[in-house]
């Protein structure tokens, strides 16, 4: 295994799948010679595959996503670069009212095998409009697969599976992960399953459920909790929808305690979903579950304020301590 940066892991996943399957192609803004927008993960693909398979678009997200849908239902496999995931808002209908529903509305005759990649989240001082965590929104639309890697390895393995999937996959890459690197298998058949959660760290006393960059925070928290003799298990939700309840419930059944983490503000997010799932399952809890979430505000630009509204490992540690009492 070699260490790759997050961008390299994404790049390798796409490159391998494009080499493997001629129906796979990339489209979006600045994906060509530029190699991808502000978080360039596509470097070199244009040189290797040319402008027909690495397709530069004008700033027309509705067309970018809509044409991808049209291509997908006619036999191709587009991998769309949304640049910032926030731009999903300007083409939201195409995603949640078209892509998610075409298989169903056609009585199963159509498939929309496409991937929508977008860079999500905050912590990067990019202010309110470019810092949204929007994964929960997509979970309300059955038909979509919502997948979020938490590190370089899962980025490669999940993205490759996403590209091979016959379902439309929302694939969200956290900005902060672009600052990381890690071991990534070079195996061209290295695939991680969609629709599954991952035990990122085993533990006995408390289950921390997180996803994406939050998993990194949870792992850091678990590390420090260990120093205090609290053994935390970290469940990493590789896929949010459809949700792998079993892995979560199995973990909580073992630990009897739950802390659920999300970056976005509290209402109707993933953390609430996890807490509700566990509580209505009847799995016996030793204490009331807790959520760690972003505070209820748009993301402020001012760095100390941004810091203030976002979750940190200390918040997770404190929540874990609370549920341990």
């Amino acid at each position, binding site marked *: 295994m070699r260490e790759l940066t997050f961008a390299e892991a994404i790049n390798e996943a796409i490159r391998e799948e494009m080499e493997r399957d001629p129906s796979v*192609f990339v489209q979006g803004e600045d994906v060509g010679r530029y190699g991808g927008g502000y978080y360039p993960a596509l470097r070199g693909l244009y040189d290797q595959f040319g402008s027909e398979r690495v397709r530069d678009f004008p700033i*027309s997200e509705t*067309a970018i996503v809509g*044409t991808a849908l*049209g*291509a997908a*239902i006619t036999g191709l496999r587009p991998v769309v670069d949304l640049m910032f995931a926030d731009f999903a808002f300007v083409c939201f209908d195409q995603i949640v009212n078209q892509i998610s529903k075409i298989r169903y509305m*056609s009585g199963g005759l159509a498939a929309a095998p496409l991937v929508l990649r977008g860079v999500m989240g905050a912590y990067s001082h990019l202010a309110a409009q470019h810092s949204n965590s929007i994964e929960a929104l997509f979970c309300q639309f059955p038909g979509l697969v919502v997948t979020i890697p938490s590190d370089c390895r899962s980025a490669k393995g999940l993205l490759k599976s996403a590209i091979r999937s016959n*379902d439309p996959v929302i694939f969200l890459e956290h900005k902060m992960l672009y600052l990381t690197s890690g071991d990534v298998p070079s195996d061209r058949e290295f695939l991680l399953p969609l*629709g599954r959660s991952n035990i990122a760290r085993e533990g006995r006393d408390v289950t921390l459920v997180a996803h994406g960059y939050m998993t990194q925070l949870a792992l850091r928290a678990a590390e420090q909790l260990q120093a205090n003799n609290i053994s935390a298990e970290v469940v990493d939700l590789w896929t949010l929808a459809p949700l792998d309840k079993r892995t979560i419930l199995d973990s909580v059944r073992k630990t009897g305690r739950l802390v659920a983490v999300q970056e976005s503000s509290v209402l109707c997010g993933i953390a609430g979903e996890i807490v509700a799932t566990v509580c209505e399952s009847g799995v016996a809890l030793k204490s009331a579950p807790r959520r760690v979430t972003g505070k209820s505000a748009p993301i402020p630009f001012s760095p100390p304020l941004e810091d203030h509204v976002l979750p940190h490992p200390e918040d997770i540690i404190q929540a874990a301590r609370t549920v341990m009492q």
Partner: protein
Amino acid sequence: MSRPLITENQVREALARGETAIHVQGDPIITPLAATALTDNGIYIVKTGDHGGFAGASEGRGELSPVSVKGYDTKFLLELYATMQRIRGFETAVGLLFKQQRIIGFAHLSIGQEAVPTGVCAALGPEDYLTLTHRGHGQMVARGARLDQMMAELYGKVTGNCKGKGGSVHLHDFQLGILGANGIIGANLVITSGAAMSAKMRGTKQVAVAFFGDGVVNQGAFHEALNIASVMKLPILFVCENNQYAVSMSERDATAAESIAARGRAYLMPGVTVDGQNALAVYETTKTAVERARRGEGPFLIECMTYRSRGHWEGETTELRPESERKQWQERDPIQRLARALIAANPATEDQLRRISDSVRDEVVEAVRFAEESAYPPLAEALRDVWSGEIAITQ
């Protein structure tokens, strides 16, 4: 620089040579007689310019063109007639069934507009793609969809095109290249651009057709679809069923443009306005546009002037369109006009036409029987086709 003038003679000569386009420099001035001949035969004018912009053949919009059946194969003409009758027959039945509440939900009928999809689909090949509007029954029928399956879909029965899951505004028939009707204004345009892009990438020579209403042209998706189609020179036809109203909003009040055809031209693609009550005019224009697209010359916008004779949707209680206008367009009924032309020019007798409408009636009755007698989908269907089934759903 003086402007060229197009004479009737030029048109006749072009016709004699079997051409469908007349090349001119600059803006043509069309004599009334030439205009008649032009629109009659769906010929359009090619302006020689940087990007081959087209001027509409009947920019007057809403003017009638004589229906001239001369030179066409009788079988072809009767097929056009039969198709329009099938649309009308199907939709008349839907209207009745809706009143009886045997069909529920949305039903937007296109009675009065039959010539548009009929003319368009007659010019397409079997591999071509289409997307439809919310008012898409006629487009389905014109493409050759089965009336019984369609009726069953409108009933929500398992024998419908989408197993009953789609309904009127989500009709699909992938076998026929019909990628779907759409309930969201403008959404199908970008999807169709994608199908055209896919055809081009795969090198298949398929052409994609996006039907849309006049109300669509002020929606952002329209803009993005046309720009990308032009930038990428996609093999796509944007076919506007301009029935002059979007619910209660008149096209003139809604749209800051000289015409919808002109709006197409603003994206450097040909945009023409044709008499949408004349299936042959629509057919000829489409044929030229299809050939052009197949040659790799890019997109084309066809604005078809038409009118719906029903309300916006079945169940509507508010009619704001002027009585006189409705009356005027009633006289332009596309089926009657083709019938009159057929009988006048004598390739068909009234008897033949009656036999066609009789057989259509039988087909419609049979479709209703089929739909009535078909079963609803088993409840388990409700949770099928959501995902592909590759992912184990544990929830």
